[in-house]
């Protein structure tokens, strides 16, 4: 067990190193001068020089990469002399267009993305698992067929179509929902939910299909197994067989899928946030890409990769904890 954990953690470090180095190289392959782009149009030569220095663009690429990675863990000073910026750990660089440390900008966007993704994930998981399980319970009935039809429709709906349609119907035509916005949960829970309901609905509509189909087929598969026949033969009530025995045996794969789904939602947040104008990580990275603000793009790629890698790791560990049949090796 311990060996497994250590090996996985080492692999994670290796993965993240490669991801960060790859992203770093990618931006270096760009022929344009990052300093000029970062500095903006009304930028004096001295300022460009300072930015170039701050990015360390005159040094060899390996040195720059090591310095960048060092900054994340220990902090560093960007540039020299008058333009020197102190950047404390975790230092992802400095955004010259916004005049702020990248870590501050990211920290401001993080709760927005987290609210969108986690809220949508809870709604999506509740709806998909319960509808899938109920469909399996009522196999062959109208309820079952209705659920299948809903998953087929949901699975084919593009996120960039659902979002604008919701906005069009509920915001502009019926005028019953407020413009999506972010209010911290603790400040005003009602405004928080009101501002998030459309992004949540969008992600849940698009995302529920996969887990609903999975939980339905998983339940049906479990119901075919021998131990279910045994418990029926013992004379257990149908209700008990289904809700106690079958549901429990199906829980593990469902938990895995739902856990991994959270990572996917963080990806889906890019478009959702842009459509609804929420200032989360997704919109931040999209805007940064448009503005060629490389430090921010770099930071968002790294953060997203870290989330996914650790998310998978945690799901794997939980998997072993929930299901005694799973052996870690």
């Amino acid at each position: 067990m311990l060996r497994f954990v250590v090996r996985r953690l080492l692999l994670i470090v290796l993965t993240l190193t490669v991801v960060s180095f790859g992203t770093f190289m990618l931006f270096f392959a760009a022929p344009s001068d990052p300093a000029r782009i970062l500095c903006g149009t009304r930028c004096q030569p001295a300022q460009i020089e300072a930015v170039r220095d701050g990015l360390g663009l005159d040094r060899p690429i390996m040195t720059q990469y090591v310095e960048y990675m060092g900054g994340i863990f220990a902090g560093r000073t960007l540039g020299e002399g008058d333009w020197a910026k102190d950047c404390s750990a975790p230092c992802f660089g400095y955004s010259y267009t916004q005049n702020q440390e990248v870590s501050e900008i990211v920290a401001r966007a993080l709760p927005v993305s987290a609210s969108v993704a986690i809220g949508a994930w809870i709604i999506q998981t509740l709806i998909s698992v319960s509808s899938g399980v109920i469909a399996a319970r009522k196999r062959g009935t109208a309820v079952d067929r209705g659920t299948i039809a809903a998953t087929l429709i949901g699975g084919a709906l593009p996120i960039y179509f659902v979002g604008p349609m919701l906005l069009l119907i509920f915001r502009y035509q019926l005028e019953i929902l407020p413009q999506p916005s972010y209010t911290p949960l603790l400040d005003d829970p009602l405004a928080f939910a009101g501002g998030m309901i459309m992004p949540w609905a969008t992600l849940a509509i698009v995302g529920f299909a996969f887990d609903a189909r999975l939980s339905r087929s998983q339940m049906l598969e479990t119901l075919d197994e021998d131990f279910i026949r045994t418990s029926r033969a013992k004379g257990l009530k149908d209700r008990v067989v289904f809700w106690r025995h079958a549901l429990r045996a199906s829980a593990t794969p469902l938990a895995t899928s739902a856990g991994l789904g959270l990572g996917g939602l963080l990806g889906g947040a890019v478009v959702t946030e842009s459509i609804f104008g929420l200032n989360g990580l997704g919109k931040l990275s999209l805007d940064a890409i448009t503005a060629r603000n490389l430090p921010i793009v770099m930071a968002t790629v790294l953060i997203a990769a870290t989330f996914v890698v650790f998310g998978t790791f945690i799901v794997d560990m939980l998997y072993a904890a929930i299901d005694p049949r799973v052996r870690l090796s």
Partner: protein
Amino acid sequence: MTGMIEPITDPGSIEPEVVVTETVDGKQQSVHGRSPGQMAWIRLKRDRTARVTGALILGILLAAYGVPLWTAIYGTDAYAHNPDLLDRSSVPLGFVGVSGSHWLGILQGNGEDVLMQLLTGMRTSLTISIICAILATAIGAIIGATAGFLGGWVDAVINWIIDVMLSLPFLIVALAAFPIMQEVFFGGPSERPLILSGLMVTGILLIFGWVGTARLTRGQVISLREREFIEAARASGAGNWHIIFKQILPNVWAPILVSFSMAVPGFVGFQAYLAFLNIGVGHPHPDLGRLVNFAVGKMQGLNGWFLLVISGGTIFLLVLTFNLFGDAVRDALNPKSNR
């Protein structure tokens, strides 16, 4: 009545591959043998969903690739501007410009015909998606089979590369890489021939597209690797490549075919997603995703919903049709699956 096997009669029966003739009670009887592929084909032909969606797909392909013909009949193509049908602020006259010669109206701005934009955009989308699905399936199958069969460090490295690919936020990387690729290859986002832009999009989609099939094939191959027929092939002196391509891959074609049929709608959706975010074949070439993006920008205007519903709905129906057909293919190849 000895040794007779009743031939299975069914409406969709096809030419038998193997015919065994036996003489029973003085009469000649033929017995049909069917390969798994033939049985799957028969199941597919019996499936109503498969028949309906198959016909729809034929219609879609005809609509998309018949564009030159439709242009000749309809009288306009996707590129033609119609300034005389716009008012002074470039808004189409009448209800989004719908008329006898522009059945779904025209676009705000230059007045391009919406119907032809949709058909030509569908052609772009389908071409890229089908090519991507073929290449991604081939690359994924070969990489997955190699990893699964060879095992050891090769498997470990390939598996790790797959994990790295899965950990990358595809959208952000694609968005960040595309302008850089544009600069490196073309020196900036200038207007380019459709084929070059299409190739760029195909390349971006392929970077991540092979991973799913590779994972699937690897798993399948690992379960086959220890079987006796592989041992027999090795004992008779077959090399690794022979075993992978001639012994193993023919045995995993069913899941690979299923993954291909699901990859087509997947790529249609992804391609449109990227185009929505301006990673597409680029103006002025029609692209479904960009059309949705355009519609979103105009949706608050008078009758702005129309273009959004038309363009988004087209993508939805494309993906839905191909998904349903893919499901039918999967059920035909794997009759035990719980539908």
